[in-house]
């Protein structure tokens, strides 16, 4: 007998009350604490960073209490509850001051469901459970220097060798690759097979000999991504996910989960709208132009959230994350652009030089981080093409 969502929510509230403090109202406490408004947790840049340890510890606490993988299968430590319960928990959790979970989001929302669905017995249990409890941090090894938007063009090879495989090649733009324990690796396993039938998915131990994950310094100065080199890396066949040659199908299921996670706003921080509007009150000139820009930013963010909520509802009603969810990212990027436009207007010189006033120059990060959304997870152009061809039915090029 499944627990009803109301009773579940009450129990979750009791758990959260006992385990975390209420989220601070930053707009009401202007000038207090950190004024970080970045969309990524740039302090989580090393495996032993306090931010990383805190995120893992909070996930472990949730997992032990039955909230770490609400929709997950019971044999992997999940609670096997409907997604409705998961959505209810997320909404509730937003009201508490919890460690930033974004460094775990690839592992939890992309690698974990892929492992649960495709991994072989043994690996499935150990890694699936490990990811869910954050004992294991996961990353995704898809993009390559010559295969960005054209993902099927990857060149990293996996060659049969005895009862295992040997991987050679290079991956890039791997979020948190240098602080991950396992990586979901898409490799070309058959040089002769046709496109989309020549790939196989693996789960790679990132501490294997021959794996070299090097952080990439971004325009923000942070090191959230890596490039990962593979030089004769041995992967046992037990760590293959799905059939040989069917890696594309496995990757598509992962990307569906990514789309759901990004589209429904669960993989990223969002702009604190109350704090943004407080910035306008404190530093704006009250002109009609400023008010209009503020309203535009407000509308764009609410539209993005509203659309995400409608996608979540669609899943609640039994739908699957279809191509329509690509719109979520298009709307999110639009919203971030409106925010950046507003803060630049309101802050003027303070947008590009730090006067040390609390909550001013900090906003520069939003503008610098937009490309992570407009490029990452499939560029805006890829999303528009998906929407045009697969939602609207326009012909392929």
């Amino acid at each position, binding site marked *: 007998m499944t627990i009803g969502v109301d009773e579940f929510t009450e129990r979750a509230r009791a758990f959260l009350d006992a385990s975390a403090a209420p989220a601070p109202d930053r707009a009401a406490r202007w000038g207090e604490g950190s004024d970080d408004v970045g969309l990524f947790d740039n302090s989580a840049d090393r495996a032993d960073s306090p931010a990383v340890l805190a995120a893992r510890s909070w996930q472990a606490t949730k997992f032990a209490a039955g909230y770490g993988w609400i929709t997950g299968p019971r044999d992997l430590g999940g609670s096997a509850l409907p997604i409705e319960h998961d959505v209810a928990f997320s909404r509730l959790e937003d009201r508490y001051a919890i460690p930033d979970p974004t460094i775990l989001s690839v592992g939890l929302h992309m690698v974990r469901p892929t492992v649960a669905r495709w991994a072989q017995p043994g690996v499935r249990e150990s890694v699936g459970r490990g990811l869910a409890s954050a004992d294991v941090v996961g990353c995704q090894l898809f993009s390559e220097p010559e295969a960005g938007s054209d993902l099927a063009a990857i060149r990293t090879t996996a060659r049969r060798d005895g009862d295992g495989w040997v991987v050679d090649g290079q991956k890039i733009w791997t979020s948190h690759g240098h602080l991950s324990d396992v990586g979901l690796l898409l490799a070309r396993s058959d040089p002769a097979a046709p496109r989309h039938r020549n790939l196989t998915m693996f789960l790679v131990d990132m501490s294997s000999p021959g794996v070299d994950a090097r952080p990439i310094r971004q325009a923000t100065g942070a090191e959230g991504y890596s490039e990962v080199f593979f030089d004769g890396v041995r992967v046992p066949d037990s760590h293959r996910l799905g059939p040989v040659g069917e890696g594309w199908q496995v990757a598509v299921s992962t990307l569906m989960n990514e789309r759901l996670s990004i589209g429904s706003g669960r993989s990223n921080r969002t702009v604190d709208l109350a704090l943004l509007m407080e910035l306008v009150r404190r530093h704006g000139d009250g002109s009609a132009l400023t008010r209009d820009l*503020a309203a535009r930013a407000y509308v764009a963010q609410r*539209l993005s959230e509203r659309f995400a909520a*409608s996608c979540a509802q669609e899943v609640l009603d039994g739908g699957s994350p279809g191509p329509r969810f690509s719109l979520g990212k298009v709307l999110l990027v639009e919203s971030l652009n409106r925010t950046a436009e507003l803060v630049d207007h309101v802050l003027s010189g303070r947008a590009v030089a730090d006067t040390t006033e609390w909550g001013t120059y900090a906003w520069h990060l939003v503008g610098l981080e937009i490309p992570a959304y407009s490029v990452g997870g499939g560029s805006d152009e890829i999303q528009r093409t998906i929407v045009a061809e697969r939602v609207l039915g326009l012909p392929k090029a």
Partner: protein
Amino acid sequence: MTHTLTVEQQDMRTSVRDFLADRSTTADVRRAMDLPDRFDPALWRALGTDLGLTGLAVPEEHGGLGLGHRELAVVLREMGAALLCAPYFSSSVLAVQALLAVGDAGARRDLLPGIADGSTIATVALPEQPAADWDLANVAMRAAPAGDGHRLTGTKLFVPDGQAATVLLVVARDGDDLALFAVEAAADGVTRTPLEVLDLTRPQSRVDLDGAAARRLGSGDATAALTRALRSSAIALAAEQVGAAERCVATSVAYAKQRVQFGRPIGSFQAVKHRIAEGHAAVEAAAAAVTHAAALADTHGDTDDDAGLPIAAHIAKASATDALSRVAADCVHVHGGFGFTWECDAQLYFKRAKSSAQLLGGAAHHRALLADHIGV
């Protein structure tokens, strides 16, 4: 979004859609544009007596269906898609919302049954020179007490369906109060003049009042009540805009698939498909905003409890206006030279987009009201 509709709402959508597919084709729309009051009285009677739609939001005790904003949104969306020519928005939405908001039991009893069955066509007269907008603060017309009632003198502009209307609900000042007055359209001292309009599917009139007899509805200052009425009407209008916008996207898609240049359908070119996809994103977002606002209006519409309703309503109207303006212009563009011919239906939607953008205030007006509510 299908998934948020109840079975009853889906049935209602289907019946309205089927009815409009039969009775409001673009050929019908073009015929109606040339009729004296720009609508077909037979179609109007069918909307009322066959479908009961004219009384959709009228309480059951006054002969209506007593349904809410979500149902209004469903119906208006279909009407927008079909570009229906009828005084539906003016009478069954705007006037009904105003009558319900001012809380005058006698006026409800007298006027709502006729509106519900379609025999009365009501509209709201609000904008005046010099502001010529829908801001209640810019209403200057003053009522003069006369015996039991009042008399009104002055000019109202942009009165939607002013020629078709049998009753005018005029916003004017009575002493310190802003108030709503009912004026018989055929009364002495009322002169209605059709304005030359860009959008022939939604006619507008100038109404000159010269000592016209007026019945004041409700007591006390009606600013809050009229604000509520304009707000709920704006949600319904936004639904109509979303419906028109969805049709524009569908028309663009259909044409882009069929029109061949350089040996391939133009819809296969990214420059064209991305333009259409971006418009679709804007429409989907506006649709989600309208659905949300309508649901909030059903739970909080009769009160001044904040509950996010004003914010949601202004977001809905501003985003639906922007989305329709964009996709209607894109639809003309995708059709190339044909798009700006009289023959092409895209121009009809473009003009509706323009007139809907102004009705109840433009996107910037709604963003300014939104900014007031956010407190910036």
